[in-house]
Each structure stands twice: as C-alpha cells, then as structure tokens.
C-alpha cells in the first residue's frame, strides 16, 4: 500500500504545478452564473486545455493527453492546491466526450471533440424527461426518420444543466415505439440553435437556475446525427451514466466537501467544538468523508489495473450525499439561521435534496447495487418484453 507518486508521476506533478503557478493569475473566481463569469470560466477552460490539463484521460488524437486516471487525480489535486477553478464543462468533457469517443463516428469525433475541449462549444445532456427519470428507458421524445435519412424530433427534456450555454446536446429519443422500451431508443447529437428548440430555466431551492427544461417542436436533425446504432441508444446512455456516477461519487472533494474544511467551519463558534453532541455528529460525518477519500484510492487502483468503473461508484455517490447532507445540517445548527445564507454553506443545504436524485436516485442506485453486486433478484416488472406503444394502455388497465 503506497500513496506516494512514482518518479514519473512526481515529474508530471511538478510540470502541472509549474504550469498552474505560471497561469493562475489569469484564473477567474470559481463561482458565479452571470454571463461574464461563465465567459471567464470558459476562457479558463480553454487555457487549461492548451496546457494539457482539461482532458487528461482523452486519447491524444482527440486533443487529450492520453494519460491514465492517476494523472487525472494529480491534476485535480494540483488545481485544488492552486485554488483555481477546474474546467467549466464537466458534463461535456467528463461524461459526454468519453461517450462520443466510445460510440461516436469518426466524423463526429473530429468535428465535435476539439471545440468541446476548449469550451468554444459547451454541451448538455438531454436524457431525463418529466415522465422518465429513474425509469429512463421510458423516454417519449420521438425521433422519426425521414426518407432522406434525416430525422424530425419532438418532445421535452428536463434537469438539463448548462442548456442555456450549450451549442450541442447529447439526446436520447425513441425511434421504434413498437419495440420493448429499452430496445427502441437512439442517441443523437443535436445543435441547440436548431429551429424548434426552446430552453426554459428551472430555479432550484437555492434560487439559482442550474438546470433547465428543453422543448423540441418538430426539430430537424441531419442524417448521421445518431451516435451509435439506431435503436442501440440504451447501451450508449449507460456509458454516460457510468461516467456520471464516478464523477459525482468521487468528485466531492473537488466541490470542497471535505472533513477538514467542515472542521474549520465549526471553529466559527469555539464553544461548539466542546459540545459533545456536535463533536459526535461531526466525528460520524467526517468518518464518511474519510471513507470516501480512501474508497477513491481503491477505485483508482483498480481503474489503473484496467477495470471498468462498475456499480461501486453508485455506493460512493450514496455516501457522498448522505455525508454532505449531515455536514450542511450540522454547520447550520452551529451557525444558526445565518448559516442558511452563508456564502460557503447555504447552497450545501439547499442543493442536497435535489442532488440526492441526480445521477440516479438513492433508491434506484441501491436497486442497481443490490442486483449487480450482491446478485439479488430484480423486482418483478410489468414492462418486460412489452412494446413501448402498448405500455400506457397496460398501465391504465392496472390502475
């Protein structure tokens, strides 16, 4: 067991640190949703990309550094150490880019990945719908093939982060309603400036609008907009979700959710640090954050040995959210009502109820781990093998 850098990794760390030292004067603040802040953070991503720090694990032929997960961790650590923001388009570079690399056509990769990396084109993920979240395969947004091979698209998506900034989206749509629901889906690339696309912000508990509803009214998609096979979209989507869970489950430290930072917050009222109940609560939640850090090292070790991220990332996500809820709660109990509008911790409280469902609700993740890791039998399903077009009638008949 060894957490030290190998000589090569230590050398890489020195290079990364030197680059950040030289360029950090140009870094914008990490927060802020106004246009100027977003523009500054996109410009910063471009700089990081030029420095080779934006897509560490992407293959070199698509503009990445072609390195492994350990180098990615070094970059994350050094960015944290330098006190500068990371990339702006985490969803694009962290989840959708890798999906395109795995399933996209060569033309798509050549056209799309470069500007994604530099944030000249921001991306959004168009999977969930009002009636298809946990049961994602129930998406109803409909893509119909035209005689010339193009597509017409109609429907609605929701919980779409960065849709208001996005040039493109990766969209899951139903292409064959007469097939059972997992089988009739196709993944598409959609230009967000296409006629018939409407983006409407959704404000969250905190008052900020981090995500949107997106409407599609008879949108025209060029031939070749599909990613992966027609009616093979479910498998493509699974790739994205796998990256999403790892990003949320092991990204907590990047958001500043760390035991040491919360300890610092408690010092705001020194007497609280002697209160047994506060100490007990803090000891318990801090232990969960420590467990996450070292679960991360264990996962990295197996990734580095060639394993594919599996269902374990889902458990890390459950722990992350549980611990972050406990931390927000405790800090606000210590700070009193003022904590709820505290610049550092107010959003921690407000964002958690929503984040509990993001990237898979806790209940769905527990189902997944129970079935895939523990080998437990699934819940009996009423939709297996039923053509999607008949499902609604079946649901109504049962009600």
């Amino acid at each position, binding site marked *: 067991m060894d957490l030290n850098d190998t000589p090569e990794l230590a050398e890489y760390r020195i290079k990364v640190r030197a680059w950040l030292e030289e360029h950090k004067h140009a870094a914008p603040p990490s927060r802020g949703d106004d246009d100027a802040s977003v523009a500054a953070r996109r410009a910063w991503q471009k700089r990081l990309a030029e420095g080779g720090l934006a897509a560490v694990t992407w293959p070199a032929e698509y503009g990445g550094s072609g390195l492994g997960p350990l180098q990615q961790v070094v970059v994350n650590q050094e960015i944290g150490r330098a006190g500068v923001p990371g990339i702006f388009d985490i969803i694009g570079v962290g989840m959708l880019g890798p999906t395109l690399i795995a399933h996209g056509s060569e033309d798509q990769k050549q056209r799309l990945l470069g500007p994604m990396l530099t944030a000249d084109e921001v991306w959004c993920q168009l999977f969930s719908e009002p009636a298809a979240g946990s049961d994602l395969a129930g998406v109803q947004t409909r893509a119909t093939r035209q005689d010339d091979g193009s597509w017409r698209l109609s429907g609605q998506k929701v919980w779409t982060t960065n849709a208001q900034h996005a040039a493109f989206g990766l969209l899951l749509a139903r292409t064959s309603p007469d097939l059972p629901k997992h089988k009739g889906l196709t993944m598409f690339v959609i230009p967000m400036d296409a006629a018939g696309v409407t983006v409407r912000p959704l404000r969250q508990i905190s008052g900020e609008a981090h995500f949107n509803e997106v409407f599609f009214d008879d949108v025209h998609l060029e031939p070749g907009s599909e990613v992966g096979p027609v009616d093979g979209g479910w498998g493509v989507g699974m790739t994205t979700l796998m990256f999403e869970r790892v990003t949320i489950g092991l990204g907590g430290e990047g958001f500043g959710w760390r035991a040491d930072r919360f300890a610092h917050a408690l010092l705001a009222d020194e007497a609280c640090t002697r209160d047994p109940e506060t100490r007990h609560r803090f000891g318990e939640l801090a232990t969960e954050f420590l467990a996450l850090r070292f679960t991360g090292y264990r996962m990295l070790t197996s990734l580095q040995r060639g394993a594919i991220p599996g269902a374990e990332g889902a458990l890390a996500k459950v722990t992350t959210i549980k611990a972050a809820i406990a931390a927000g709660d405790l800090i606000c109990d210590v700070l009193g009502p003022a904590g709820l509008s505290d610049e550092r911790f107010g959003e921690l409280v407000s964002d958690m109820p929503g984040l509990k469902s993001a990237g898979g609700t806790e209940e769905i993740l527990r189902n997944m781990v129970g079935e895939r890791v523990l080998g437990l039998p699934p*819940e009996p399903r009423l939709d297996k093998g039923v053509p999607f077009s008949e499902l609604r009638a079946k649901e109504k008949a049962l009600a």
Partner: protein
Amino acid sequence: MNFALSDEQEFLKEAARGALSRVNTVAAAREALDGGALPDLWPIAVEAGWPGLLVSEANGGAELSVLEAMLVFEELGRVLASVPLLGHLPASFLLDRAGAAAVVASLAAGESRAAYVPARPPTDLADGWTVDPSIGLTRASAPAFAGGRVHGTVAWVPDAPGAEHLVVVVDDGRAVHVQGEDASVQAATLYDETRALGHITFDGAPATLLALAPGDTAAAWYIGQALLGAEAVGAIDVALAASVAYAKERHTFGRAIGSYQAVKHELVEMLRGLDNSRSLMYYAGWAAQDKPDEFPLAASAFRLAAGKAFDHAARAQISVHGGIGATWEHDAPLYFRRAQLSRRLLGGTAGAADRVAGELLTAARQAA
C-alpha cells in the same frame, strides 16, 4: 500509487482462513454460552506465527505491520475465533519497542502470553490518561506508578485472565511491565463468551518501567482500535453473505424476499458499511506505516465506521432472517452479541467518534 493488498497480504489472509477452518469456532461459541469449554486455538496461532506479528525480527518476531495484524483479525472476526491476541499484540508491541528482549522472545514464540492494560490518551479537551470504568461512562484515571510499584484498577481488560505478563499504561502515559501473578485479575467475561475480559486491581504490584519513545503508548491504544475494527469487518462480511444467500432462497408472496426493495436496500446498506469500513481499514494500515501523525485519526475513524457497520449488519442479519434469526438455532445471535460487546470496549465507538472530531478540530485550530 497503489491502494490494494499485496500478493503476500492476500496470502496471509488465505493462510489464516485455512488455519482457522480446522476448528468449528462458531459452533464452539454457541456451546460456550451454555458453559462448554472453548477450543484452545493458541497452538494454531503459534503455528501461524501470529503472537510475534508485531515483534521485531531481532526479537524472534515476524516484524509485520499493523495492516497485517488487521488482516489476521479480519479472519478471526469472520468465525468468532477466541484467540487472546487483542491483549497480546499491543502488549508485545510495547515490550518489543522497549527492548525487553528476553520476555519478547518468549511472547513471540507463544511460550507465554501478555495482555495490554489499556489507557486512553489525552484528547483535545481532556488531559490525562484514563481507563474504562467498571460501570457507567465516567472515565477513571489510569493506574499510578511510583517507587517501582503500581496502584489502581482497570476494568474490561481484553485477554487479561491467564496472561503471564501485563503491560500497564499508567496515568502519565508511560508504561510498565507487571507479572500477571502480582496483580489481582477477576474474570469479567460476559455476554460474548469468546471475548475473554478481566477487571484488574494493582495493589502495589512490583513493576518495571519500560523505556519507550514518546507516542508508543498512544500507538498501542490505536492498534487496539484498529484490531477491533478489523474483527468487525470480517464479521460483517459473513453476516452479509449469509443474509444475501437467505434473501435469494426465502420466498414470500410468490417471490424471493431479496427482490423486495425494503430487503434489498437493507442488504446494500450492509455492503455500504462494509465497503466504507474496508477503505478506512486500509487507511489505518497505511497511516500506521507511512503517516504516523494521522494514525490516531485513521484508526479511530476505522473503529467507528466498522463498529457502527457491524452493529447495523448484526441487526439486519436478524431482520432478514425473520424470527429464526433471533434464536439460538441460528448463528446471527452470536454475531449480534459480539457486535454489542465490542462496540462498548476500549473506549467505545462513541469515544472513537469524539476522537475523530478532536483530531480534525485540533488540526483546524492549528491551521487557523
């Protein structure tokens, strides 16, 4: 970076599992509740070299690390094996560090047995070295050492009955060596017969001061925390496997109970506790070796996580099995008893939670 067990460490675990499989320790644990004699596992431990795990090679030991000791304890915990190493390992560690070569060689060879008489190191709020009281939560001062003699009492000392050597941490944080026969040891084993406990009274027992480096007696406390945690990890693993197997085979309303979310999610919660505990076990093992400053934090966090997860797992195993799980027909009550007693020993899981908070708050104060 590499945060996984080495081939040698995997082999050590396998060998331990193999050695322990020669005796049905779980059946013995049940019989012991009715007064049956426990099998003597000491010869197996000696054959495997466990008594000398933490003793330097120069003194006849294996000179392995806390991580290896935890891996052995994980295997002991799986099968509720009653081997008096929770007392012996920290005691032999301290005697070895003090250079008590003659005694240590006999301990490493398993010819004699030592028990660590624990005292909790001071916290950020409480000065002084304290011991678990025989009843209540109010901690008592550790025994006092003066003029070559020890006075005081310590309750719930693991593996004290029958130990030839006692390594006693005294109220100023030093440690002394006392012959077992010079102390009054009252057997205090209860509830879990596989866990030998004793209340000890020192009434002027002759004692030899051990020449230790600062931090050694505190390290012994945290080794104890780590070993208790590791034992829990093994037990959770067994409880989870038994519960999953039962949830697949037991049917109600025409389907396996493991298909119901209420049952499935409880089993996943057992897995989550196990997985987090295992990560912290590696953290504690790594810190003991490579980052001693963090060992108090790591060992305490591990002990807390594993103790809580074991408590949950022991209860969940009973619920998943229904009524039979709460009877002596099943092994579940044996694991439950182990969990309930363990979480209250050596300062308790609550004490570990407080320690985690204290360590992190101290670091934050220093950084501020």
